[in-house]
């Protein structure tokens, strides 16, 4: 099997789904001739033509609105946010129109909204967002945030085939830095299922997207240096959250650390803490520990951004303290 980047995996998923199903169309800014700001749709226009790869004006609300209208006609639009930060511009279309339709008037909206997210690349405060928690609070969405090329391809395909609106976040730090062998043909990865990336018995480390790799790095060091075996779980989907896999692991290790690149207050670690308090209170032998970004906008200068983001050292230190609690 060939080694492919995260970015190539996204491209493969789009290509294969469009080739298999003419109801799949791509709509967004500069997705056609230019092939997308990060080239995730490179070559799609050439293959599938102007009707299926639609370059739009800079109008995020109109992109989502039009995708919504297309989905009512039985199409499966993939709407690209050039940078996921711009999803704030169409917040109303997403949260009030798209997300509520099925509950209110039985109108499914099979849309995927995808785009490059996350920091660590000096994108500054408007090109580094982790937007998951703005939307996790809105019933009606599914939220997917993969960490590997294999998952990116399989989950994007599953998202396109899903009858619900799926917010699919692609951590841009991973686009060209991560490679792995993935099957060339069709496969899907189920939405809503976490995966154990590393088995361990001393504590559970929950993470996703770029921070999954940071967590694994810290876990390996903990094992080698401290003899601490952390079980690393990649959440993969944030909504619906795979409570079963989380609880199973925490009931085994009795300790839980959550690592996320999103800011701390109102981050998903808080939600996980609540779930553990409700459903695993007697299994916990220590406090839930959060390693997250600072509660600030994403700063631009490399020194500031490094201070802002979690890294393997911060995870290592927090995990060591928790293991010894």
């Amino acid at each position: 099997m060939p080694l492919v980047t995260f970015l190539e995996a996204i491209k493969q998923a789009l290509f294969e789904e469009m080739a298999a199903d003419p109801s799949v169309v791509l709509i967004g800014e500069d997705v056609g001739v230019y092939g997308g700001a990060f080239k995730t749709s490179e070559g799609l226009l050439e293959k599938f033509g102007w009707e299926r790869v639609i370059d739009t004006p800079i109008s995020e609300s109109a992109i989502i609105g039009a995708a919504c209208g297309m989905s009512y006609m039985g199409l499966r639009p993939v709407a690209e946010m050039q940078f996921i930060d711009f999803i704030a511009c169409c917040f109303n279309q997403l949260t009030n129109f798209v997300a509520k339709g099925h509950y209110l008037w039985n109108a499914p909206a099979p849309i995927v909204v995808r785009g490059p997210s996350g920091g660590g690349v000096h994108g500054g405060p408007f090109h580094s967002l982790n937007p998951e928690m703005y939307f996790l609070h809105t019933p009606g969405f599914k939220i997917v945030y993969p960490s590997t090329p294999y998952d990116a391809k399989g989950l994007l395909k599953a998202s396109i085939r899903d009858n619900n609106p799926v917010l699919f976040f692609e951590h841009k730090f991973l686009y060209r830095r991560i490679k792995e062998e993935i099957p060339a043909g069709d496969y899907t990865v189920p939405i809503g299922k976490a995966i154990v990336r590393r088995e361990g018995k001393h504590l559970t480390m929950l993470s996703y997207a770029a921070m999954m790799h940071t967590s694994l790095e810290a876990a390996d060091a903990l094992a080698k240096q401290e003899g601490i075996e952390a079980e690393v779980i990649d959440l993969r989907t944030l909504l619906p959250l795979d409570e079963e896999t989380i609880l199973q692991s925490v009931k085994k290790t009795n300790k839980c650390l959550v690592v996320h690149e999103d800011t701390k207050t109102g981050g998903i670690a808080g939600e996980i803490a609540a779930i553990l308090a409700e459903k695993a209170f007697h299994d916990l032998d220590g406090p839930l520990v959060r390693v997250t970004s600072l509660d600030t906008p994403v700063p631009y200068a490399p020194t500031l951004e490094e201070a802002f983001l979690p890294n393997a050292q911060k995870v290592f230190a927090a995990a060591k303290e928790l293991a010894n609690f």
Partner: protein
Amino acid sequence: MPATETATKRKLSRQQYLDLYYYMRLNREVEDTMTKLFRQNKIVGGLYASLGQEAVSVGSAYALEKRDWMAPMIRNIGALLVKGVPPRDIFTQHMAKFTSPTKGKDGTSHFGDLENLHIVSPISMLGDLIPVMTGVAMAGRYLGQKIVSMTWIGDGGSSTGVFHEGMNLAASQKAAFVLVLENNQWAYSTPVRRQVPIENLADRAKAYGIASYIVDGNDVVAMYCSAKEAVDRARAGEGPVLIEAKTFRRRGHAQHDPAEYVPKEQLEHWEKRDPIALYEAFLTKEKLLDAKGKKAVEDKIATLLEKEREFAENSPTPPAETAATGVYCTGDDCHKITPKWERPINELLPPKSSVDPVWIVEGFGRGHNAARGDAPIHFGDVTPAAAAEKQAAAAPPPKAPLAKSHAQSNGKPPGNSFTTSAGKKPAPAAVKSGSRGKARK
């Protein structure tokens, strides 16, 4: 720039004239019935009247064909009736009954029917329907259907940002879309003159490079003729059309609002221009309606609404346990999503769909396909070449860089790489080197 136009008033068939009359009367009677229900505390939330605006809803929706799509606004009860919604759906919606189209999950005219009547539900946020109905028109064209989509917006809603985004997208896509801009002079308590510094809201069409009409919204035949012309043009591929209907909101924003901010003289002026009274005079003059005919319409409506109101009043309220259901579509058993193709699918698949992906600029020739090759990357990401280079430099990946550097920790972040995971498949098989924050060096 296309100038604002006036549609030719055409001659309709006797049946068409009488249909317009029937639906306007039905629109008013449905709302009168709901006002009574409201006063009996049988309406759960607010009640919004379209008194005096019936000709806009009825005349414009009457120009649509069965295959066409529409999305009403809160005051377009008449459009719903014309498209085929039974009055009971409107009553049960307002009374939050389990038999309502939304099973009590939303009220007012907030409901739709994708399968049969081709109605998209509005939401309370104004302007959002414009890009949505643009998308409907774009999809219709893509599927090979010869449909037109229509929605309505008030003078108030025309100030939203999404109005502009939607109109511009519709225009740039040449979507078969008709927008009826219902200028009823008041956005809640704010007069149109304090919202917009222009006389005619139809002038905005010029900015989008699209056709527009200005029409007397209280003249149902003029309204229909303008809408018909607009729908025909949109269907013929001429692009979207904006119709400004000049009319007047004769009640408050909703039942709670006595609208004392409206000058009495202005209200009286428009009361004298009641669209139903004007139309009755026209029909009488043209000998299309006499006292007997009028009585027959009234009786028909009274009988219908009595039955529909009783159905609604006797309907159950939704069982509490249904509150938790229906947020997600559970799959094909819930909704089988199948587009209705009216063109050969193979046109949309390679090789037939394949194109030369370049822009051609008139007078200057062709650009290059920027998507090809090892193009430079948007800031912040590594180039493919750099990634490959680092990949090579990183092989074999360091075994435990974190442990090593942590041992010499001097407060700086230890380790400078994502290591290869020992985790089970599927895990990343190879990774880059270079830590976060250092990728650009």
